[in-house]
């Protein structure tokens, strides 16, 4: 059966579309995209009126933790995918820090096998080093063959510069990007928040921004040396934005992402020893938030990725120093981004670009678009709808977020994957 999405406002920054279009979906493909009322409606077409709603290519989140295999009590591929489509994401790239680490075809196969039944499209990211220990290279060719879309040791840096150099050189052969968590482990030792007057007064060890910046600097130099592709995960510092800007001006092949929480929350969220706001990278200052927004608006930061990091309640209901790092992200990313749009901090076009084409391009993949013959992976959202994230609508197996009961402006309304509505917001 064909589906006609009628009356929606299409935002496809890659194609430069920002106007009302009707979209005809046939099976798992887009069959036609036309100006309103040109596509004739016949009996066999199911017509869905989405007047007043917006349509974008399916959102992609290139940084999530699905925890399967090995930590299924935190999240599974199925539950993570359900959270993804509820958040408007048709595609997610899952980090390799599972148990075991995704450093072999066997683990990649396992993930992709589970992914067949998932509501969203799952793209595994393989490890840069075996067990992400930073000691020896993972089998990039085997992993690419098995379906890994990029490589990362996320959660940990590749501290050994020689290994990082070799990995960058080797992966050029495969056309794969290394997505890197930048942290100097000596400078960050024992940290549980940003280093600042607040960390000093709370008696918590802070991570100075330099711990992130020195590693960004190193990898800019290694990307320059090797011409290998570096993508910086969850950039959190103002200085990091400057360094990446300079690297791009110098023609060095780097890209960068920012997490929505680093655009929306600052370090004050940890006041009262709120473990829900304990992240790695840590929440920083307002100066950093402003620089990240500016970097995003100017394309220095390429894309937004959630760093969805589910954790069981016990690992957060504990002494701050011992609590796990991270928060849920899949269902709050689009609401945060659309709220920033409503506040005039970022344009709608740039917001959608940073969640679609720019994200794909950060991994050197060609973007999906709203055009004929493209897969019918489509996100329908309402930038004006009030959205409150509650336990009830949370689809993750975990509930760790500092954003429960916060009000946002805008959210996903329907998510279509391969021509099937995998999520429809209840009225």
């Amino acid at each position, binding site marked *: 059966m064909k589906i006609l999405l009628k009356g929606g406002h299409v935002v496809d920054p890659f194609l430069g579309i920002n106007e009302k279009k009707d979209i005809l979906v046939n099976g798992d493909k887009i069959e036609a995209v036309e100006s309103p009322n040109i596509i004739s409606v016949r009996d066999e077409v199911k017509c869905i009126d989405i007047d007043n709603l917006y349509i974008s290519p399916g959102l992609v989140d290139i940084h999530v933790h699905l925890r399967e295999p090995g930590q299924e009590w935190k999240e599974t591929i199925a539950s993570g995918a359900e959270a993804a489509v509820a958040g408007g994401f048709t595609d997610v790239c899952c980090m390799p820090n599972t148990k075991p680490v995704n450093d072999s075809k066997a683990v990649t196969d396992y993930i992709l096998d589970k992914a067949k039944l998932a509501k969203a499209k799952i793209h595994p990211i393989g490890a840069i080093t075996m067990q992400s220990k930073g000691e020896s290279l993972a089998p990039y060719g085997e992993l690419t063959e098995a379906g890994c879309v990029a490589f990362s040791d996320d959660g940990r840096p590749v501290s050994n510069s020689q290994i990082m150099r070799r990995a960058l050189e080797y992966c050029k052969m495969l056309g794969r990007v290394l997505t890197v968590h930048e942290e100097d482990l000596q400078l960050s030792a024992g940290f549980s928040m940003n280093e*600042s007057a607040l960390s*000093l007064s709370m008696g918590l060890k802070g991570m100075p921004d330099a711990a992130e910046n020195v590693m960004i600097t190193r990898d800019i130099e290694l990307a320059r040396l090797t011409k290998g592709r570096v993508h910086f995960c969850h950039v959190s510092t103002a200085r990091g934005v400057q360094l990446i800007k300079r690297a791009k001006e110098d023609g060095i092949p780097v890209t960068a992402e920012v997490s929505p929480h680093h655009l929306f929350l600052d370090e004050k969220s940890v006041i009262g020893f709120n473990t829900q706001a304990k992240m790695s990278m840590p929440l920083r200052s307002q100066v950093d938030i402003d620089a990240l927004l500016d970097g995003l608006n100017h394309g220095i930061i390429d894309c937004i990725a959630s760093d969805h990091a589910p954790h069981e309640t016990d690992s957060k209901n*504990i*002494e*701050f120093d*011992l609590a796990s790092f991270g928060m849920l992200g899949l269902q709050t990313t689009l609401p945060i981004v659309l709220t920033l749009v409503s506040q005039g901090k970022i344009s709608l076009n740039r917001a959608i670009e940073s969640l679609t084409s720019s994200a794909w391009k950060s991994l050197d993949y060609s973007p999906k678009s709203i055009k004929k013959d493209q897969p019918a992976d489509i996100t329908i959202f309402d930038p004006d709808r009030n959205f409150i994230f509650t336990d009830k609508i949370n689809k993750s197996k975990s509930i760790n977020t500092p954003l429960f009961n916060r009000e946002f402006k805008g959210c996903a309304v329907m998510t279509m994957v391969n021509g099937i509505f995998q999520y429809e917001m209840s009225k």
Partner: protein
Amino acid sequence: MSYNHQHLLGISGLTTDEIFFLLETSQKFVEISERSVKKVPALRGKTIVNLFLEPSTRTRTSFEIAGKRLSADVINISGSSSSTTKGETLIDTVLNIKSMRPDVIVLRHAYSGSCELLKKLVPNTRIINAGDGLHEHPTQALLDALTIKQELGTLKDLTVTLVGDALRSRVARSNILLHKTLGNKVRVVAPPTIAHSHFEDLGVEVFYDLKKALPGSDVVMSLRMKHEYQKDYYVPNLDEYAVNFLLTESIISKYCPSAKILAPGPINRGTEITSELADGPRSLIFKQVTNGVAVRMAVLFLLVAGKNDYSPSEEEV
């Protein structure tokens, strides 16, 4: 005046009036420890659990004596004897203790913010922070303040200079908060590895040179240089530290001759402070310890007895 909090989690959040009220109440309890029969029935039938999950001799003993002089039943649980060594979490340990209905839990724990966590677990039990990680140690700051007040007669318009490892000191944090609340000047003097510029954001003057920091100081507080200094590269070694920052009678008499010397202890003689100074006439170190009992009696009384004014005469045994 009164103390209207359920707990004492830190100096943070206390007003000037509350600090003075706590000190005035503490002063009333000083006298009890001077009696031949050092006991009043104020907290008869009340149960105090001293949960000390980090090694402590002075503070634990002080709380124990304070509780006993108020006739409370005092139970000590220490890190080594508790189930924490069997892998039990703080939460489970506390939930078990809570089930036995104590009136107050005095917590010492290695992690900052532990008392905030406890507060959510045991909403009906009083909590006293006896030191949480690097965060706060409010009774220490209060006993320091009581000692200063007894000696100098005032807690106004003072310059309080902290010498040594203020970075990894909860005593420093609580003292900074207390003296900034009272409007006093606070200085930190240490190598720049320790005396971070972030102290200035807390309203503290930062110095790297003892000779510049000491002039004008009314109180000099010697903070402990922890022996694990080398692991974190704060100073090359303790001898090197002593070359620049050792407090001696001669440097004090030269740069701030009227200053009094405090130290929260334990002290490293010859590294932070000379014996001549620590044991000399301007040292208030042992007076601090004596006052510690009075301060803890006052805090226990105010939190547990359910009334705000204490008059020793009514409480004779």
